[in-house]
């Protein structure tokens, strides 16, 4: 195939890039989703003291402001072979759950709902947060923003800053919570629970009651059959901060569990010459190329994976919502990726309830916030369920805790394979006989949006749209059509 | 310019009360030191910001030497102690950033040490000649 660059001004860097190749009939031959930036954190963290790492890696992404922070401080605990004090652990969990609420909220209202509320074929000019607010009314829009802000405020009280917090230290937390602060958090947590209930109601009214949308949710064009990885406790209930990481196959059978460094027994990342992002797969099945199906070695993470691997939630309102999902959806693992949004809305409520529970616990104001540290043991892994899915931080240090080596696997990287499959499938479904139009752009966008890409580097956007360019090549390798949303 | 024609360009920040007087004495007593040495008089070694030293390197100086009073002799009581602490930390920082540590030096030279002034300058010139030109070039555009 010869490639002819028609438009030398087609610059595309720091964005997602999709290349679709057509065959002689004008149907899809193949599609590739490329990530086009690399910032080198794994390298430049070397030489830094491990306690400086959390406030540094937080800047991998400003959207998932709390997750690299939490995973890396857990890794720092492990580097010193200590556990956080019970109080510090509660504070960290409170921090992470408040983050879940604000992040899921931003993602759903800016990214998930507009497709449904404003309509999947509406112009992108209105298919965004502003357009959504115009439809649901400014009052509702204000209420959502105000309640989300309460979650951000909780993060600020705990972390010292609303974004890129600073209070985490190996073995604990740098700041005690006063009784006044606990009361304030408790007060704010009401907003969070209301936001969760409101959000589920919106989902029900707009999506579940709409037959046409339910066809999108349950249809085959937005479906990827793969393995799932997520985190549960002993009762098989979802956990975000800590737990057992469980793998289930496409049929729902458990095929492995791991903790800490054991992730290396299950997961490897394949280097691809055509993307700056690696593609993880399950070692057990070996590298099976980029294909889904019953024998795939690809796996995905995030809200849908968490729905598929566990048996629900440990808070009452979220459990009720989960049971309703179970009734509505087919039994066993669900491979329809639009369900991601629904699972996300339930998780928002679950995280809000957890915030309330933790704030009700008076012992969170106890003075024991730091475990004393000895010499570093020199290696530590911190794994959490980030908002977008499993997140792994792995560090090697010297005996003084100075970083010598590090490995990070972020949620969007785990999902790289499934995202490729989803895009290929959607393109295949919507591009027929060489007919390509703007509507395709959105249909293909809708294929990756559930995964809520956080290619922090590629996310040059308010959470809402990843800038994306689609190049379509004909059978001779000529650019047939270029579309972009930026 | 061919290597054989290359002559180092060395900046010496000399404290007004000691090292500058030492340079003066070296001249009066006819002690020779290389023409690569360019002296800049400063009120006190402690008045020297780290920025001045790095700016000199950045603008293409092949070596930078800071000259101050011996411990206990500072005209301003503690300026030279401050200079020493700054210098040590700056040295560590520059090494971290890939600057050869030999290019930057701190020496205590009093007003009565004309001979020592000349010796230190000759030695520093030799060290810099061995190191070769500043990789950042004469105009700081490495």
């Amino acid at each position, binding site marked *: 195939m010869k490639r002819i660059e028609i438009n030398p001004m087609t610059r595309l860097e720091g964005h997602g890039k999709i290349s679709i190749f057509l065959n002689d009939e004008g149907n899809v031959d193949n599609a590739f989703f490329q990530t*086009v930036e690399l910032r080198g954190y794994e390298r430049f963290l070397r030489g830094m003291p491990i*306690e400086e790492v959390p406030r540094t890696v937080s800047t991998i992404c400003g959207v998932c402001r709390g997750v690299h922070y939490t995973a890396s401080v857990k890794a720092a605990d492990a580097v010193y072979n200590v556990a956080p004090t019970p109080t510090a652990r509660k504070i960290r969990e409170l921090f992470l759950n408040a983050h879940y609420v604000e992040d899921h909220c931003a993602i759903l209202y800016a990214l998930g709902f507009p497709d449904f509320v404003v309509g999947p074929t509406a112009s992108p000019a209105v298919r965004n947060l502003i357009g959504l607010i115009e439809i649901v009314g400014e009052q509702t829009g204000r209420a959502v923003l105000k309640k989300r802000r309460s979650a951000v405020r909780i993060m600020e009280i705990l972390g010292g800053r609303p974004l890129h917090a600073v209070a985490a230290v190996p073995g604990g937390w740098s700041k005690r919570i006063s009784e006044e602060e606990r009361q304030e958090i408790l007060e704010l947590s009401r907003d969070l629970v209301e936001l969760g209930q409101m959000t589920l109601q919106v989902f029900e009214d707009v999506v579940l009651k709409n037959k046409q949308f339910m066809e999108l949710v349950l249809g085959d064009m937005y479906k990827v059959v793969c393995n799932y990885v997520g985190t549960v406790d002993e009762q098989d209930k979802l956990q975000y901060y800590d737990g057992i990481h469980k793998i289930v196959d496409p049929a729902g059978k458990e095929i492995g569990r791991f903790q800490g460094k054991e992730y290396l027994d299950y997961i490897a990342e394949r280097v691809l010459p055509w993307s700056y992002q690696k593609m993880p797969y399950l070692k057990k099945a070996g590298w099976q190329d980029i294909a889904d199906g019953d024998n795939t070695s690809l796996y995905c993470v995030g809200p849908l994976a968490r729905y598929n691997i566990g048996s629900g939630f440990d808070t009452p309102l979220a459990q009720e919502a989960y049971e309703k999902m179970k009734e509505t959806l087919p039994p066993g693992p669900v491979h329809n990726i639009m369900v991601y949004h629904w699972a996300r809305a339930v998780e928002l409520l679950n995280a809000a309830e957890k915030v309330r529970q933790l704030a009700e616990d008076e012992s969170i104001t106890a003075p024991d916030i730091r475990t004393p540290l000895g010499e570093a043991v020199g290696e530590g892994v911190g794994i959490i369920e980030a908002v977008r899915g499993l997140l792994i931080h792995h560090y090697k240090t010297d005996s003084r805790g100075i970083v010598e080596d590090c490995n990070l696997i972020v949620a969007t990287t785990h999902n790289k394979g499934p995202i490729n499959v989803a895009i290929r499938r959607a393109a295949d479904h919507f591009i027929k006989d060489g007919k390509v139009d703007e509507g395709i752009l959105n249909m293909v966008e809708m294929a990756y949006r559930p995964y809520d890409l956080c290619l922090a580097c590629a996310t040059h956007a308010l959470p809402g749209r990843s800038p994306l360019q689609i190049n379509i090549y004909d059978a001779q390798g000529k650019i047939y059509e270029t579309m972009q949303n930026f | 310019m061919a290597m054989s024609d290359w002559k180092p360009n060395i900046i010496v920040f000399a404290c007004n009360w000691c090292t500058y007087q030492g340079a003066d004495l070296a001249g009066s007593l006819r002690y020779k030191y290389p023409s690569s040495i360019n002296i800049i008089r400063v009120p006190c070694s402690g008045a020297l910001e780290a920025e001045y030293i790095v*700016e000199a390197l950045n603008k293409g100086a092949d070596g930078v030497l800071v000259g101050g009073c011996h411990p206990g002799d500072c005209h301003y009581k503690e300026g030279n102690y401050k200079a020493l602490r700054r210098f040590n930390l700056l040295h560590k920082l520059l090494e*971290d950033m890939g600057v050869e540590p030999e290019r930057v030096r701190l020496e205590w030279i009093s007003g009565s040490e004309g001979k020592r002034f000349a010796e230190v300058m000759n030695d520093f010139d030799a060290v810099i000649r061995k190191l070769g030109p500043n990789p950042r070039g004469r105009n700081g555009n490495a």
Partner: protein
Amino acid sequence: MPEKVKLAYLLAGGCAGCDMAVVDLSETLLDVLPQLEIVFWAPTVADVKYKDLEAMPDGSIDVGLVAGMVRLSEQEHMVKVMRRKCKTLIALGICASMGGIPGMANMHSKKEIFDTAYFDTFSTDNPEGVVPRTNCLVDGKYELTLPDFYEKVRSVASVVDVDYLTGGCPPHHSFIGAALTAVLEGKLPPRGSWLTGGKAVCDVCKRNPALQGKERELIQDIKRVTDGEPEQDKCLLQEGYICLGPVTQGDCNAQCPNVNMPCRGCGGPIPGVKDFGLRAVSAIAASMTDEKLVDKIDCPAKLFYRYSLPSSILGGKLK
């Protein structure tokens, strides 16, 4: 009804934290929206594409905000377009102003970064030893391209002349709100300056001995934040925890020292400082009792230049 102020927003390279700080304005954002006409917000809020921005007349946008740093040619290009189109251009946050945390990559070569990412990391599987290529033929028929990297990260402010600089990683949402208000009221300082209260972090820090009517003491020992808990109201620097508050702008209201964590300099340099890291070295070293304490400081470049390495006089590690 006065004319609406035309506003454009661009995130160059970076983490979108500055964008989220704007979102965190929440209702305040809805309050100011009526006074603004958002002509470009890459790429979400207004449906305006890069090419539309490029087609707007030069100087037709009142205010432009640019966040993030510059590593790729497209970022450089868009930053230059923003400069041409905007009457007033503001570098939002420390990445745009000085290079930010991603600027620490300037301590390493492109090759080092690639070797780590594609060969040395624990979970990397690379049997054929491939590295991503700018041009690549997959399965012998699909030709795919990737952008090339620049060797160094730069700040927006070093790529174009910005009218105002702001610190913060990210700036606090209330600071962004105040800056937007100043823009709307036309109450901006002379061009070329930082938008700042002009105070150092120490000036607004409750731990400052001067504000408690006490004498400042010299540093007796150097500690890491893992070395015990600092006392509640004592200056962290005096206790031996290296804190860059003395040379950092305090528009953050000293939020980090307030939760017992030392300042790392994200607010940008206090007025009159040419090179943040070097001035920090001077200030910290001068407050020590003993020059040997210097040896207890790890990795000084990544401490003193944590947010500003690309703006250092040296620009990065010399190869």
